[in-house]
């Protein structure tokens, strides 16, 4: 019985004639890496509409790599390419949430290089590209040594247990994506009009202090309605979404410094919010102030 090592949603893309264009095929599919009954690693593409396996490639260690297609404007196109031939298979990520692309792709390449490895799944809040030095700044990830090279990672015993659990659940579900993430905080759920409206209504001083941060070329002078309009606008929501995604890369240390926050604040959404709460406390001038009323 074949053992699924990892699986994720992906569609195929095909070269357009002899051009350099690759067109995505909309068929819903999944890439699965399985240890076959033959003892070999199989790179499989399965059609999710009818569950048919439409591609089944046997790959020996080092035969192939799974690389990002940098020239793809869409950004989530990958190519399986072979060391010994010109063969190319193109794929595109089909999970609406792209924040785990790197994780999946990293594991694909690790398995392609050495099918005996255990896939590495990031725990909540952990990002191996984080610039944070010293103990972990996220709530549940184990401490990552600051001397580690980005991208390399040694699992702790707790994580190995979790990884074993995930791999088992992968097999049981027959290829479904890995265990559910624990509740995260999305900035887009924090800065909702519903959360902001009461703030505007009850805080005229805050409202005034916000005006200088608004676009300087508004057609008419701002008021509370302007604020409400802006926080509901697609442009503002896109900016919040972008900031959320950017924070998740863990690479915003430099940017958050310009806001008077420590570098750790740029390593994720929760660190960012915690650092903001610290900053608020400091600006209010008291360390004993209770955060909730």
């Amino acid at each position, binding site marked *: 019985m074949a053992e699924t090592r990892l699986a994720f949603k992906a569609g195929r893309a095909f070269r357009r004639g002899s051009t350099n264009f690759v067109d995505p095929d909309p068929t819903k599919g999944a890439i699965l890496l399985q240890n076959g009954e033959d003892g070999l690693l199989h790179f499989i593409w399965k059609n999710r509409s009818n569950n048919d396996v439409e591609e089944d490639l046997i790959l020996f260690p080092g035969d192939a790599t799974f690389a990002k297609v940098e020239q793809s404007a869409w950004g989530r196109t990958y190519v399986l390419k072979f060391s010994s031939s010109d063969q190319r298979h193109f794929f595109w990520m089909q999970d609406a949430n792209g924040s785990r692309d790197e994780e999946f792709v990293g594991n694909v390449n690790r398995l392609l290089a050495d099918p005996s490895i255990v896939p590495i799944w990031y725990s909540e809040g952990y990002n191996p590209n984080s610039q944070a030095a010293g103990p972990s700044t996220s709530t549940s990830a184990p401490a990552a040594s600051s001397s580690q090279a980005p991208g390399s990672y040694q699992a702790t015993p707790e994580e190995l247990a979790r990884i074993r659990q995930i791999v088992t659940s992968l097999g049981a579900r027959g290829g479904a994506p890995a265990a559910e993430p624990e509740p*995260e905080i999305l900035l887009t759920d924090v800065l909702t009009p519903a959360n902001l409206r009461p703030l505007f209504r009850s805080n005229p001083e805050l409202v005034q*202090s916000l005006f200088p941060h608004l676009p300087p070329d508004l057609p008419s002078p701002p008021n509370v309605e302007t604020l409400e309009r*802006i926080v509901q606008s697609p442009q503002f929501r896109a900016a919040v979404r972008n900031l959320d*995604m950017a924070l998740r890369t863990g690479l915003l240390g430099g940017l958050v410094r310009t806001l008077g926050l420590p570098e750790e604040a740029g390593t994720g959404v929760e660190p960012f919010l915690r650092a903001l709460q610290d900053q608020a406390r400091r600006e209010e001038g008291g360390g004993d102030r209770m955060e909730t009323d």
Partner: protein
Amino acid sequence: MSGDDDSSGWQLTESDPGVFTELLKTLGVPLVVDDLYSLDSASLAELQPLHALIFLFKWVAGQSSEPSSGGQYDPEFPGFFAHQVVNNACATLAVMNSIANIPGLQMGAQLSELFSFTQGMDPQTCGMALTSSDWLREAHNALSPPSAISLDGLDLPRTSEDAYHFVVYIPYAGSVYELDGLKEAPVRHGEYSEGGEGWVAKAREVIEARIATYPPGALEFSLLAVHDDPIPRLQEQLSQLQAAGHQSEASELVVRLATENSKRERWAFENSLRRHNYLGFIHALLLGMAKAGTLDAVKDGAKKAFQERIEKRKKGEAMDED
């Protein structure tokens, strides 16, 4: 993959009539772009004289490079036609293709020079000339958020909104032409008659035929109309009517002018929102929440919302892409 997918400093813009109209203003072109919700005679009549139609649709896999029904490639097309060389520039490219062939069009000096420069160029070279034009790129980028918070270097997943494609329909030398920056040449769709609705009647046929080739509901598209700015004309008509004492007709025009002006104000508001970097505003909002003592409760609410979404997804079809 084609090397022309590199963004070359062109940022992604929204395909909104307000954005297109602002771009035209920057180029010194006195035309306006409006959403067209219907191709019926009444809707089109309001926008005459109509200079070009832009058909936007989500890129569907398997797009063949054959011209759509009824058309033929015209590689000898003597007018302006540029290939799409950089994906992010597609909106501006569509605007260029839609206005470059309008006879006697008023425009700013830089655009005029650019059109002279590209005269006689093949579509690929023409596209590259547009893409290498610094001032044009700056005019284009002015309509999207400043790159301080641009994510191009961070390798982040893009949303599916990026996949819009633009096709321009124009009248040229008595025929309706389709200018598609991803096709090898303009497509000639046949002659139109000058009377009545003119070229738009033929264009309507062609566009409706194209829409009909997709299964119902499979194609997400919208239509934009490039036409003269109606405000000067309406204002002149209004003064004439008022001078002649035709009060009721004058008040109708007042209403139309008011509607048009409020739309322009909305566009100006949205464009100023588009150009803005929200980092400072977001910081101030979160700080404000923290100081008001509500951030903890909000964070808990956010965690709950996230959890609820996961539960919903588990219950629903697990493998569908949003």
